[in-house]
């Protein structure tokens, strides 16, 4: 048995996605959270990951071309209900 079950920062950064995805076991999750609350570096790293996810969630500003939308509207108007 290990005397210390503490995670190192290098281990924590590998577990970040499993943590935010809720894929850690109860025990791993507890060890992760115990580390995070006392470690500024890993707290900042987790914040970077979360902010990255949020930024990526807002990346998509692409739109269909006006012609494509117009064609779809025309199709919708002409759509024959069975």
């Amino acid at each position, binding site marked *: 048995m290990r005397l210390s079950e503490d995670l190192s920062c290098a281990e924590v950064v590998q577990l970040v996605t499993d943590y935010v995805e809720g894929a850690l076991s109860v025990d791993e999750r507890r060890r992760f959270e115990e580390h995070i609350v006392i470690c500024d570096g890993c707290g900042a790293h*987790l914040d*970077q990951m979360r902010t990255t996810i949020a930024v990526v969630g807002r990346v998509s500003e692409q739109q269909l071309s006006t012609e494509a939308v117009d064609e779809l509207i025309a199709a919708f108007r002409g759509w024959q209900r069975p």
Partner: protein
Amino acid sequence: MGRPHGHVGGSVLGMSPKLEVEAGSFATAADDARLVQSLRDGDERVFVKLVREHAASMLYVASLFVRDRAVAEEVVQETWLGVLRGIDRFEGRSSFKTWLFSILTNTAKGRARREGRSLPFSALVTTDLVDDEPDVDPDRFLPEGERWAHHWASSPQRFDSLPEDQLLSAETFAIAQAAIAELPETQRAVVTLRDVAGFSSEDVCRELDLSEGNQRVLLHRGRNKVRKALERHFAEAELR
């Protein structure tokens, strides 16, 4: 796409409120039923709103399979025609969004097949899972032999302390978008579907034939590369 994955706002360090996941993007079954009825009734306003609302995600997802922007646009159009044709078959067993995107991916896959574009996805997964790039540069941690070996040499920069106009600037989004574009294909697919289009992990596993574990590894690698790009960008911005 089904339920929101409730972990983003996790328990230890909450996301700053300005970046909270928009609750409105997760429609209830009742909302979906109303929406589908409007389409069946021929409500053009609702149709156009839906087309615009999902355009970005649909184009992204389509381009995972067909690459060419013009073809991606055709796939999106074809998908909506498929929606209209099949609207009477929608029974609300999945969310409207899940249904919409399953039609989209089928359409896109069919199109890719007809164009002879093979989808060596499963072969790529293996390559993209074996990744030599570490999550964090090992130099950022104290070396073996130090009392705090494998702990941060100096704390990374917090993103949530950045001014909002910098964090949410067009430049930031451009950096993120470029970083996603440069990801290995399967990582790009998973990050795009999960984080840009808002698919659940279950949906991504089904659409891309991935195991939960592999999906998570690809997501981890992909998100990390985008995170690194943003970290570099903000560090450079600080020096300016």
